[in-house]
């Protein structure tokens, strides 16, 4: 079945902004993909990520799991997968503190965002990171929120 913004929106009950093309099929790729202030990086690209000793893995439900919620309470990045094909944990750490979690997919999974649309990830293990910017005089950097 072709996965489109329309079908993802229906599966999750999440609305996407109506000016985005809802009928185009979402490309599924196995490389690095950015979605606004979030980036999906294949595990092979990371060197120093570690899992917490008691990292808890959860199965991604059909309606998706919210990875990151935007400012002003809206516009979350949501990870969407067919039942039994993807599990996810927040129990990871990485120098720089940008990693928010790792997901492991045995079938294509999708990241959905109301303004950015969707990105498809081929089966594999990926780390999800936030974006930062330089903050002179403060902590050196701060996380970007869009």
């Amino acid at each position: 079945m072709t996965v489109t913004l329309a079908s993802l929106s229906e599966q999750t009950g999440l609305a996407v902004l109506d000016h985005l093309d809802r009928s185009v099929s979402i490309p599924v790729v196995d490389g690095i993909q950015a979605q606004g202030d979030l980036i999906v990086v294949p595990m092979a690209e990371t060197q120093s990520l570690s899992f917490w000793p008691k990292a808890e893995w959860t199965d991604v439900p059909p309606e998706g799991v919210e990875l990151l919620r935007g400012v002003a309470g809206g516009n979350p990045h949501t990870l969407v997968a067919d039942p039994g094909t993807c599990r996810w944990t927040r129990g990871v750490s990485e120098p720089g503190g940008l990693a928010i979690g790792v997901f492991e997919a045995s079938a294509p999974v999708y990241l959905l965002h109301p303004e950015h649309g969707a990105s498809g990830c081929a089966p594999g293990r990926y780390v999800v990171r936030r974006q930062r910017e330089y903050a002179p005089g403060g902590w050196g950097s701060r996380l970007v929120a869009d």
Partner: protein
Amino acid sequence: MSDDAQREAAAVRAEWLGHLLSTAPADRPAAEAAISELYRLIGLDPPRFHWVPSPLAALETVPPGVRPRPSESMNRLSEWPLPPRFRRLVGDLFVQLDTRVMRSSRVLDPMIRQLVRAPITDSARSTLRMALLGEHERFGQGSAWHAALCPSWSAHYDAVRRTSGVVYTSEEERLLDLWATPARSCGWWWPREGVCVVSERPVEIHTEVSGDDGEVRLHRSDGPALRYADGWDVHAWHGTRVPAWVVDDPSVERIAREANVEVRRCAVENIGWGEYIERAGLRPVAAAPDPGNPGSELRLYETGLEETPQQAARILLAVNGSVERDGSRRRYGLAVPGVFDDPLAAAGWTYGLSAEQYARLVRRT
């Protein structure tokens, strides 16, 4: 920990954030009755009440007929005798409740701290307390008292009761309720022997959500974020206190004159990075096609804003991967360390990637 407990905790948080951010006129009889009773509980007669329209008015005026002792002037709030006595009164109760209730529910305590107390403490710090600190360093001196007045305490023990099913004794209930009453009926209060100054609440407060647990901070893009009836107001841009011009009339000239780098950043954000770069004529360092974002360029600029070499930053101007409703793509500027000459290395850094890795970005939306 059940979902029910989490839902209830979120409901308690919403309720107390509502009190923190309330703009309703004070319920003066309720506030005065509760504060009078608290005075009695520390062994003093009820005070005379002096109502002021704003915390700034409390700072700058003296109640009529009162000649405060030097040790009880507003700029020495940390030395006042009464606040520590009130703090001890409720502090003892809190310790007692923590010992008795929390021993039996070790899961609830961290949950309530995370979902209720911390977000309300943060929100108070990023709204009313931030505004006052910015106004007068003098208020920093009394921060222990202002922390005690924070509704996070009342919210915390309200949440404990509502999520644990623990029944407090009537004594405990009564003191909790007395302490909670001013927090939900009026602004801050400052107790001296014989007279208590109480502030009204603001008439306007504008915030935005700033965290995952409901935290809010001051923000308004078309006027003061906080305003009191006596005209005292505070402008804030995404949680940073700024002069009014940053919100109302930001310009390249004013930004160049501004000494504070945070204030400059807020003003630039208000103008928009793309627009600002054009107007200010920032010097481009390098440009490169944005991988994964066909047709768009990454551009690196010198800021000309840094004060010291250690603070040197450059601006990476990027273009959104997705279109806006009007068909355009939003430009945005991100500050990056000044060491970068290569736009790909700078863009990679923002995601913890090398230039080589970022160059292999397949897709951006």
